[in-house]
């Protein structure tokens, strides 16, 4: 009851008040909560040649453990990519074992609740099931939440956006204390690549608006409203062509890699490099860096590189 009430009364009231008082950014500031997340020594950890769980264990340790991000009693929302009704081997969705391990880390750090959801492209129940994320997440004790109905989405203002000025965002993103973004690295027919920023299309209701109104700009605009507290790019198996859905297993290359960063632009820049593309060639990464959302220049970052 608490959470929903908080959203429906508190937050919606907040939106109303915010817009009535015409204070730009009032709401987004109240919600976007980088608080409590301390700067780590490393800006980014890149790891390769291990199983997803093993790589995550080692990588998060380098960042000081999940406890740096998740405090006792907090609620956590994890947003994997569960966009497609395909089996894990096809690598169109985030690796389910990685999701499970992240959830376990959160609970070990004392998280009260861990939620997992995505606003899928294919039928959500089939995606949740075929991707095996539902099974693994539930095994780890997370609550697997639907993202299929507009009633879960609350309208928010995005004052700093250039093309995207408002959107409807899943209530769990608004109500949870910690937001962990776990995309899978894939080729993408429209965005060129899909990684951390592109994955956020799965927390809003109307993706068509983004597609109509300069896709790359909208992808870059959204994090001005809410940046995930942690981005974990799953590059264990990478769909090199025919993304984001893929046609067959032949599209997939086993890269056994993972990138973790609090800097969403840096994470995506590193992902692009890993894929074999220049970050500046991916317009939404460039736009996001221009908006000051993070660092596109990897040479300026303190990067920890690990080979298991």
């Amino acid at each position: 009851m608490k959470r929903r009430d908080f959203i429906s009364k508190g937050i919606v009231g907040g939106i109303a008040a915010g817009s009535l008082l015409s204070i730009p950014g009032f709401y987004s500031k109240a919600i976007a909560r980088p608080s409590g997340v301390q700067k780590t020594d490393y800006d980014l950890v890149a790891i390769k040649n291990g199983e997803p769980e093993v790589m995550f264990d080692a990588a998060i340790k380098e960042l000081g453990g999940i406890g740096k991000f998740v405090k006792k009693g907090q609620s956590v929302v994890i947003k994997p990519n569960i966009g497609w009704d395909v089996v894990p081997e096809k690598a169109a969705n985030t690796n389910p074992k990685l999701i499970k391990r992240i959830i376990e880390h959160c609970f070990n750090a004392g998280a009260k609740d861990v939620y997992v959801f995505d606003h899928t492209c294919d039928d959500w129940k089939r995606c949740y099931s075929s991707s095996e994320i539902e099974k693994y997440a539930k095994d780890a004790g997370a609550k697997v939440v639907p993202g299929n109905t507009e009633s879960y989405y609350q309208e928010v203002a995005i004052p700093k956006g250039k093309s995207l000025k408002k959107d409807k965002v899943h209530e769990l993103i608004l109500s949870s204390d910690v937001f962990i973004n776990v995309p899978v690295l894939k080729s993408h027919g429209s965005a060129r690549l899909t990684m951390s920023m592109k994955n956020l299309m799965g927390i809003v209701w109307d993706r068509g608006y983004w597609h109509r109104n300069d896709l790359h700009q909208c992808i870059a605009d959204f994090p001005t409203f809410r940046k995930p507290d942690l981005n974990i790019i799953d590059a264990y198996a990478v769909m090199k062509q025919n993304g984001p859905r893929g046609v067959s297993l032949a599209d997939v290359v086993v890269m056994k890699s993972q990138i973790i960063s609090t800097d969403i632009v840096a994470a995506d820049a590193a992902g692009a490099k890993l894929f074999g593309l220049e970050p500046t060639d991916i317009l939404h990464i460039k736009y996001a860096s221009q908006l000051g959302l993070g660092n596109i220049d990897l040479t300026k970052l303190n990067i920890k590189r690990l080979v298991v």
Partner: protein
Amino acid sequence: MKKLNSLKIFRIILSVVFFVPILIAFLDLADLVPHDMKLVFTNIQFIPAFLNFVQNPITASVIFLSLIGITFLFGRIYCSSICPLGILQDIVYYFVLKINKRKRFLYEDPKNIFRYSILIVSVVLFFAGSILLLNLLDPYSLFGKISANLLRPVAMIINNGAASVLTSFDIYMLYPVDIFFHLPVFLFSLSMLAFIIWLVTKKGRLYCNMICPVGTFLGLISRFSIFKIRIVEDDCTSCKVCEKKCRAMCIDSKGQLIDYSRCVDCFDCISACSSKAIIFSAGNPFAKETVAKTDSNEMKSSESSSVAVDISKRDFVKTVIASFTIPSLILRAGETPKVYKNSTIAEDKNYLVTPPGSRSIEHFNDYCTACNLCVTACPTKVLQPTFIEYGIFNVFQPKMDYHKGFCNFECKICSDICPTDAIIKINSLNEKKLVQVGIAHFIRENCVVITQGTDCGACNEHCPTKAVKMVPEDKLLVPKMEEDLCIGCGACEHACPTKPYKAIYVDGNPFHKVAKKPVVEKQKVIDTTEDFPF
């Protein structure tokens, strides 16, 4: 008076056994019931069994012939205990009796001209190529329409209410579902339900004995049933109690006559008779019976002649009928444009898209009775009822509506579940993935990439076979169709964000084809111990 006899108890148990699963099949919001289980209970319905029989007289004859055989043995057991619409009427009648304990019926003459006309027209139309009357009047399909369009939305509203209450307690066991209303079929179902309820309150099972073509047909057989309700003349006091209790209004107490063509085997009369003068017993089926005045012989001959309509005449009659049908032109009712760089060119759809497995629009139109079972089972809601888009002789038959959803690549539920084989079962998913139900067409002038000069590619993103390619043009990627690979699933059309007209749309294949299998270049294996590229 209230005592139950064992036959009546048996009838009620049988009704529950057949009714509950079929109701659940239509109300299964979470798709929990295995499809084979649903099929068991829908396939034994008379019209689905008949349609299966007509399509495969050799392999699919068992159920159909069994239903006929049961009727010949025991009378209209189908109407009393298998037909969901019949049982629904019994449920209504139960409440009528609760409200009005003094509810009485009296014998009425059969509405022969009316009922046999409907039967003959149904049969003639069917063999002429239009399933219209079976679609509208078949009791199973009508029950399906009522369940899918009236009862299911009620279940959905309850589900959504419960889901939102549970969600507020942070429990995500139930989830909200989208409720689609299709007004024409909703109104039809509502008015038919209201009409049937009214009939039950006034005249008992009159729908079954005046309108229902299945009831009328089985009535032709049940006259000659071996086991029948019989009045023991010596014990009968002509007290009229049985007559007043007869929901089929087929007992003439005074003349000690029973119209067996209308008796629906409810066995109420046996309980009602205090003199025990009514029994259910075997006899010589062709002996001269106490049949109430009907013009059975005359009708029987005209019936058999109509069944024997030469199939080759079918095309001729069909052409005649087709010339009266309204062509499928109601496709283009677009939404009103909004403030946005609107797309300008209307989609040019010539054919509706029928579900994979239906083989052709013609086959689908010929055998679909619009029971709506596939509509309720479709996980993406792409299957939606129509009104007269297929023509007035094919009302309510579903189509693939790509504005509501798109055909899930990994799914063939509709072909698994169709009880009439209007959608023929596809053996494997791999086979289904190549069934081309239509072909997508790209309208460059409507495309965001062209009109806005920004990347979009939603169509390519959703395309499961990559029939939609993205081709570099300046610094942008523009969609390009490779039609051979397209299966017409409509994912591209559904995802395309342009308004009011889509920049990519599927035009149906009147005859389904086989698409080319996508060939994918195998990616090279890489060394994962190499250094990072940054």
